[in-house]
């Protein structure tokens, strides 16, 4: 089999499976007369999605903006702390507990408290929740990358009598980049999920999570699912964008 046919199959096979699953879903809903509050048919969801593309896009834009702010802030703070922890042992020891704590707290559960702290009419709480969720994988991955310096490179830097900062800039930071981008890729999905779930707990109107809850409460199940579809698309945009970043960073990041 030639490679092009292989590629084609790699694309077509999952696509065919998806189409088949949707067809079965549609068939089952019609055949068994499943009620919309249990699950609407894909056709109904598609119609709802096609009927209000502008509102769904507007909601996705609000949630997406919160996720993006959270992603940027979380990445900057995560990288900063990882560099500090890699350079200064004490900071590493002090932050280890905090990071472990952050990793086990269900961060979105803090949403109600944050809405009170920053005001329920502000997006700040949602952005902060996304930022905290992003911080952890970015910090952990970047720190791991910073610790991956190969002995031969360490010897080389010593042989060159390079200062700690020179060695960090020449070897440690570029070597950690692929790890950082892997962290960002993992964090990007978390940013969208956290920003969206935070909307369930209050805060200003607008945002795709808010739209899902209000559509459900007004018994418009097909519309609720249409918003879910919008949320999936939003998550995909974040994931694909950060995946592309990761791939480009890894181009010459291999071992040599």
């Amino acid at each position: 089999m030639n490679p092009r046919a292989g590629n084609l199959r790699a694309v077509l096979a999952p696509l065919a499976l998806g189409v088949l699953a949707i067809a079965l879903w549609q068939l089952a809903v019609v055949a068994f007369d499943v009620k919309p509050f249990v699950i609407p048919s894909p056709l109904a969801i598609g119609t709802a999605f096609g009927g209000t593309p502008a509102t769904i896009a507007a909601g996705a834009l609000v949630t997406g903006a919160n996720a993006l702010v959270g992603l940027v802030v979380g990445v900057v703070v995560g990288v900063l702390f990882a560099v500090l922890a890699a350079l200064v042992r004490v900071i590493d020891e002090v932050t280890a507990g905090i990071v472990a704590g952050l990793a086990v707290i269900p961060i979105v559960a803090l949403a109600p408290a944050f809405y009170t702290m920053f005001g329920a009419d502000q997006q700040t709480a949602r952005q902060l929740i996304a930022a905290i969720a992003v911080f952890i994988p970015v910090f952990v991955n970047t720190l791991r990358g910073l610790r991956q310096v190969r002995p031969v490179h360490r010897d080389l830097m010593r042989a060159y009598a390079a200062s700690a900062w020179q060695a960090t800039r020449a070897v440690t930071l570029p070597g950690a980049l692929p790890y950082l981008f892997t962290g960002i890729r993992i964090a990007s999905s978390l940013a969208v999920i956290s920003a969206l779930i935070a909307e369930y707990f209050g805060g200003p109107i607008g945002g795709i999570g808010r739209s899902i809850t209000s559509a459900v409460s007004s018994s418009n199940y097909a519309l609720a699912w249409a918003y879910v579809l919008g949320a999936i698309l939003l998550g995909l945009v974040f994931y694909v964008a950060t995946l592309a970043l990761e791939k480009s960073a890894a181009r010459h990041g291999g071992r040599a």
Partner: protein
Amino acid sequence: MSGIPTTGPVPIGVPAVAVAAVDKVFDTKAGAVTALQSVDLTVAPGEFVSLIGPSGCGKSTLLRLIADLDQPTTGTVSVFGKTAHQARIDQDYGIAFQQAGLLPWRSVRANIELPLELHGVGKAERGSRSSELIELVGLTDFADSYPDQLSGGMQQRVAIARALAESPRLLLMDEPFGALDEMTRERMQTELVRICGETGAAVVFVTHSIPEAVFLSNRVVVMSPRPGRIRDVLAVDLGGARGDELREDEHFFAGVSAVRELLHGDAAPGARARGVENR
């Protein structure tokens, strides 16, 4: 101001490397391990000295002591009359390891320029120096390639060019051809002989290949393991113009046999007078 240290005149009588009464003991979980015991070695400026011996004989450790990557437990190591530490700070040597150790995100040119960049050499000067070196190691067509696009032999040539970047008067090489296939290896050896002839640098070369040591060296230092000691030093002067035809030469074969006998000889380490040249 020239940022590149030049191969300046060496004061007469000052050896490139002087190792005196060096012991090196590593403290491991299993207890103290003596890697080197009462090692004495002098390398003259411009001289090519190979360290050969079985695994665990401390030859790499000895090289690391000269490079000031490790410190001796007792004894002294001096490089061009300075302490090894001062020589490292002054960048008196270039070094190449068994792994090329190139930075994968830097092109061939940028890898070679790395030491110059770290030591504040200007951009224009870096560029002309790296072009010279790329030509010297025959990688003109690959200046802008990345390490993952090169074969192992080519990567090692980049590493050697990088070691030569600051025109050091001393080259320290730790099995630089160890991971290469035999044919590439012989070609690299021939190139190294040519490069050393052109630069006039002294070389301390760690290897476990007998023909390699004999082909390259003015003197071969034979070491024995546990604890690492210098068993013998063999002078092999095959002349300045060493080409591939030398590999068929009877003097070469004689040198190979002599080193092999020393390596496998049952004389207990220290039983012979150390440092005596077996002329």
